[in-house]
């Protein structure tokens, strides 16, 4: 018996049929509002009100929650197109339709996610204008030109997204597919600039460059190109890929756990693998980007650097180590389970290497999580001679942290390589030599990374930062690139000895994927707070002081509670987006095989322009 959808569902579907219109509406509001800000400056009118509070929750907390949700959603809508486009390219190049289907499945999410992000951006803007009018007037005065560019980019992005999504089926073959791929590229191109423009506003607040002379454009440009702008741009770009990958993994994990048929299990198992792979792919260079950002912060302002890494915010980095640790463990665990379950008979072969990698990972994590000054009772501190342990205290500084993070990247990469090679037998004659070279390279790289880390304690900090740490990164990157090229060359003609079997992963694999996504979200809330609170009592560091009642840094426990709340809210929003976006599929499934024609009367419309044609082809 067919059930008619409820009123709310119908309403959501109607709105979701043209979701990007909401985004465009918000963007248009922004375009209209921005000149108003500029005109207000021309009239010489300045509000006598510097701050307005929001009863109950407080203006700062409200801004904190909304800004964080907006940023997380922005990361999602910027990460997913990269993920989807990469999948589409792979599908186009290899001819494997399932990649195209995966790309489409995630692009379908974009439309509703995009409008939700824009809505949160609009809410944030209104709250900021209302609660912090003086700060917003100051920022508008500097960044007015970039506001205009931002709005224009928003319109371009919206139009491109419309064409990309609605044109998926119409441009699925031949030359039109190439044009569709080009649209996907442009979508990401505009998205990149949509990301870096607001980044300039946020990074300006932390590392302002203010010039007194010059045109409005010159002032805006100088403020935009501030010392931490590009480090944040690169860090966020990579982090968005990681977020997109792991959220795809979590979605696949949940669908896998609730799958009812073998086909569903196979599909979502494979999707989980792709999500985890792309998440790990982004995770590997992320520590390097983070290191570069911190280096720039230190160089820009010693006070800010110490507040973050040595002062009261330094405990956040211990939490960060724990979260990243769980993420590395979770990702590797998923790879290792994949070997055990998807490649029959390979468990015994890889048990020892897996154990070795696990032990190395745990040792590295132990070092990474060890704080410089330890949490100790009075009695314990007296026995240690302070809160700094005489022996293990050496693990608390950057030389040790950089060394173990490089080693963890190496180990995770080796996990992936092992998974890649499992069930395949090389046929080329030089494979044995290549493997011997790779093994030797790996050992040399490991020794070199550790040696540089140890030697780093005995050289001036600048030598360690400029030469040793960069050399460690260079060595690891060299291994990553060399091994990838050699392995792909070996496997090109390799014989498959054991076919990979999808859909056999145990339920805990699905939970591991969900855990990874939650860890990434928590990490983003944590480091977002760290970056923002490093300004301490300044709206614009050293330029505009925060004189509101909230000009204090909250206790770490309080901050952690808000981060956890933000993570929960974001997960709920993402779940809602997935629910909305897949409502059409569920409707189709409910009708079973009866729904053969899209034109059938009474058939539920496919959600947000979804393609029944393509789905039938696959």
């Amino acid at each position, binding site marked *: 018996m067919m059930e008619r959808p409820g009123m709310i569902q119908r309403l959501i579907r109607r709105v979701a049929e043209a979701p990007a219109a909401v985004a465009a509406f918000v963007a248009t509001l922004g375009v209209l509002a921005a000149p108003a800000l500029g005109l207000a400056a021309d009239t010489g009118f300045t509000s006598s009100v510097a701050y307005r509070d929001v009863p109950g929750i407080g203006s700062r907390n409200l801004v904190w929650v909304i800004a964080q949700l907006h940023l997380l959603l922005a990361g999602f809508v910027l990460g997913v197109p990269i993920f989807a486009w990469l999948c589409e390219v792979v599908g186009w190049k290899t001819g494997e339709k399932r990649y195209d289907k995966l790309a489409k499945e995630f692009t379908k999410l974009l439309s509703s996610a995009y409008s939700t992000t824009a809505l949160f951006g609009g809410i944030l803007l209104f709250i900021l204008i209302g609660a912090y009018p003086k700060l917003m007037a100051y920022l508008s005065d500097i960044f007015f030109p970039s506001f205009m560019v931002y709005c224009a980019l928003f319109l371009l992005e919206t139009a491109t997204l419309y064409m990309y999504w609605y044109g998926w089926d119409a441009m699925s073959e031949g030359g039109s597919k190439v044009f569709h791929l080009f649209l996907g590229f442009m979508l990401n191109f505009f998205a990149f600039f949509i990301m870096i423009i607001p980044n300039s506003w946020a990074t300006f607040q932390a590392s302002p460059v203010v010039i007194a002379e010059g045109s409005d454009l010159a002032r805006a440009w100088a403020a935009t190109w501030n010392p931490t702008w590009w480090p944040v741009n690169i860090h966020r770009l990579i982090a968005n890929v990681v977020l997109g990958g792991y959220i795809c993994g979590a979605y696949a994990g949940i669908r896998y756990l609730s799958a009812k048929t073998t086909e569903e299990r196979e599909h979502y198992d494979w999707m989980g693998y792709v999500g985890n792979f792309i998440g790990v792919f982004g995770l590997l260079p992320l520590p390097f980007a983070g290191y570069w950002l911190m280096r720039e912060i230190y*160089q820009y*302002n*010693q*006070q800010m650097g*110490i*507040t973050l890494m*040595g*002062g*009261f915010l*330094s*405990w956040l980095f211990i939490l960060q180590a724990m979260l990243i*640790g769980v993420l590395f*463990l979770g990702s590797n*665990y998923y790879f*290792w*389970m994949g070997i*055990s379950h998807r490649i029959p008979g390979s*468990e015994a072969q890889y048990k020892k290497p*897996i*154990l070795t990698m*696990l032990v190395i990972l*745990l040792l590295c*994590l*132990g070092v990474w*999580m*060890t704080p*410089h*000054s*330890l*949490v*100790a*009772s*009075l*009695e*314990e*501190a*007296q*026995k*240690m001679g*302070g*809160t*700094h*342990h*005489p*022996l*293990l*205290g*050496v693990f*608390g*500084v950057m030389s040790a942290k950089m060394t173990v993070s490089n080693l963890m990247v190496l180990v995770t990469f080796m996990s992936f390589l092992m998974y890649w090679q499992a069930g395949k037998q090389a046929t080329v004659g030089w494979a044995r030599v290549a493997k011997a070279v790779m093994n030797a390279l790996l050992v040399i790289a490991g020794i070199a990374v550790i040696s540089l880390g140890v030697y780093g*304690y*005995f*050289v*001036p*900090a*600048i030598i360690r930062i400029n030469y040793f740490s960069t050399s460690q990164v260079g060595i690891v990157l060299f291994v990553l690139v060399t091994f990838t090229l050699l392995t792909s060359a070996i496997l090109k003609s390799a014989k498959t000895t054991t076919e990979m079997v999808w859909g056999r992963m*145990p339920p805990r694999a699905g939970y591991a994927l969900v855990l990874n996504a939650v860890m990434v979200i928590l990490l983003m809330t944590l480091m977002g707070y760290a970056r923002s609170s490093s300004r*301490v009592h300044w709206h614009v560091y*050293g330029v505009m002081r925060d004189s509101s009642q909230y000009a204090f*840094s909250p206790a770490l426990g309080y901050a952690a509670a808000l981060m956890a709340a933000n993570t929960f809210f974001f997960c709920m929003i993402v779940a809602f987006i997935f629910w909305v976006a897949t409502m059409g599929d569920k409707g189709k499934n409910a009708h079973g095989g009866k729904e053969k024609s899209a034109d059938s009367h009474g058939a539920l419309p496919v959600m947000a322009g979804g393609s029944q044609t393509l789905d039938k082809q696959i």
Partner: protein
Amino acid sequence: MGALTKPVILLVTVYLFLKFVVPNIPGSAPLPASLIFLYLMLVTAGIVIFFTMSSESKEAFWGPIQRFLTGENLGALSSARYAVLIVFPLLVGWQTFGSTAVSDAPPAENRTIHPAPPGEYTGLSNPVSKTPENIMQGKGFYAAFCSPCHGGNFDGKGPAARGFNPPPANFADPTTIAMLQESYLFWRIKKGGVGLPIEGMPWKSAMPRWEVELPDEWIWKIIMGEYDGAHQSPRTWE
């Protein structure tokens, strides 16, 4: 040896190593409970990961626990099961009571060693030229004013050091002054313990406020003497 026995032995061994072996390594000290807990959690995570990798290992590891807890074919062990089901909640209750009961012991500290310096002290460069004479003079000032606590060997082991908790900083340790710029040391020497900011309280430092006794030039020379004597270099960006 059963799949369950190995992890238990491993956990106990790691605990004993951290609790009794590490403190007895020359130059070491007992580890705080927080760090031991952290390391044991890591080991536990590793055990769970390794033993749940495949269906067989998971069954070998988790199966006995599950059967014991559900009372499936336990035989003579059923009384042990009841003992565990009674003792475990009691242990949790005892732990909860212990961590929430009123105590006269001060709370555990998460002291921040390096607070951020005030803006006016960031980015200052040493105005005293780095000549052998100035370094030597700085070492002389250091011997007179600093070495009673920080030690003649710059290792934090001066004759008065034992009277302080936390102890004076060990400058020869590459994780102390080598991580800092000269301007940071200038601030700390000049303002002393009383000049520390309120962020990350509690501050416990007996460092005198040397600005009332020493001119700035002497402080800069002391800094040069400290770095040279401890065989360290200040953090720079050039």
